[in-house]
């Protein structure tokens, strides 16, 4: 889902529903749009469910480059 933003994907789905409901497509076009819609739905669903929780701290290493360090190492002070 890196290529297409989630919000755009949802908007595309809504457009597909609109087009199908309007009904003035050929059968070929309608089936194509249906396929596309199912595919986008699947990708969106994947995006929602496959994300992983991660909390990092941004640090600079000795070379001055950026690195991410997981939070439990750096502990939020109570």
């Amino acid at each position, binding site marked *: 889902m*890196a290529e297409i*933003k*989630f*919000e755009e994907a*949802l908007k595309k*789905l*809504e457009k*597909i*529903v609109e087009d*199908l*409901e309007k*009904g003035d*497509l050929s*059968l070929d076009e*309608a*089936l194509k749009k*249906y396929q596309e*819609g*199912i595919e986008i*739905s699947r990708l*969106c*669903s994947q*995006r*929602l469910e496959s*994300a*992983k*929780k*991660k*909390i*990092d*701290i*941004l640090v*600079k290493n000795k070379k001055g480059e*950026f690195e*991410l360090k997981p*939070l439990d190492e*750096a502990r*939020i*002070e109570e």
Partner: protein
Amino acid sequence: MSQASPDLFASSSNPSQAKHVYTVSEITQGIKLILESTFGEVWVEGEVSNFGSKDGHFYFTLKDNLAILPGVMFARANREIKFKIENGLKAICFGKISAYGPHGKYQIIVEKIEPKGIGSLQLALEQLKEKLEKEGLFRAEHKRPIPYLPSRIGVVTSLSGAAVKDILKVLDRRFSDIHIIINPAQVQGEGAKEEISGAIKDFNRFNEGLPYSQQIEVMIVGRGGGSMEDLWAFNEEVVARAIYNSKIPVISAVGHERDTTIADLVADLRAATPSVAAELVIPKKEDLRERLAGLFTDIKRSILDFIKLRTSELEATQKKIALLNPVVLIEQHKLRIADLARQIYIRATHFLKLRQLEFNTAIGKLSSLSPLNILGRGYSITFKIPQDSIIKDAKFIKIGDTIKTKLHKGEILSEVLNKSDQ
């Protein structure tokens, strides 16, 4: 040249002393000492004018409508001032009254200066707000849109503050599986403004080295509640510019609902509190699931409807075609003909019956009028023989003639024996 305290009021008419003539420096020194011992450190209120600065030192005069008082504020003292001193500013100054020999003037050496009628922080804030607004930093057109479902969120705040815990808690509640990157920064005190602006720039530089899919898509910059002094770092120009120049959209989350800092005005989106920022930055996972499920259902339904519609259209057309089939037409015609034939038969039969009825009626009538019927009632018809003509009048018969009498049944041949003519 070494009097302990020169007697300025010594009369020159004292004959025992020679006329004392001061040098300029002596008299100046005297004036200085008198001023300093009389006034020491004072508070003076006036309007600033003729303001100038050289080598970091401030030179100005305080005035009211009757007098002016030259003033100087050295760099060491004016370093802490947060607001800009401008001509026309009504101020209250605290300092030492003294004399400055080389210029031959008295002056106030200012240690502290405050604007009259308004807090110094407040004045500084208003001045900076005006300046940045003129530059267009707050313009709505410049604000970047916040992405709807960011996969990576940056947070600039203190690791030891309340804000970070609130943000993490709310983010976890709404959408537990996202990647959060915290760039810690002091949020108040010495060095805070550099750390905050530095952290914002860091995130931007971090993104530069990464492919689009791994970049931070939005950042939250904020801290928990506090006094105006506590929040002051978020009113600093360097922080405002870092936010303005950030390519990553910035959500500001400073303090509580009623605190508005300059960071809030420059940011792409302002949240009343850090918790609200977390709500603004990401939608609730269940809401998204629902919306997605709804769309999925809609798509399935609409394609089925589409197919149904096309199918019924097809069937309607097929029916139409079927009706135009010649075989069908022939059958139709056959039926029609049979039907017509039946109708003709019915009507003809009916017609015949009617005529029959009429005929019978006529016959009946005729029958009843028939003379032969009369015979049935006992009458008879008499014929003259041999002419066979019907006799109605007796005068046409002579005695001795032969007559035929037709009865209802049978005939009688008779000879006339007698007659009468009436």
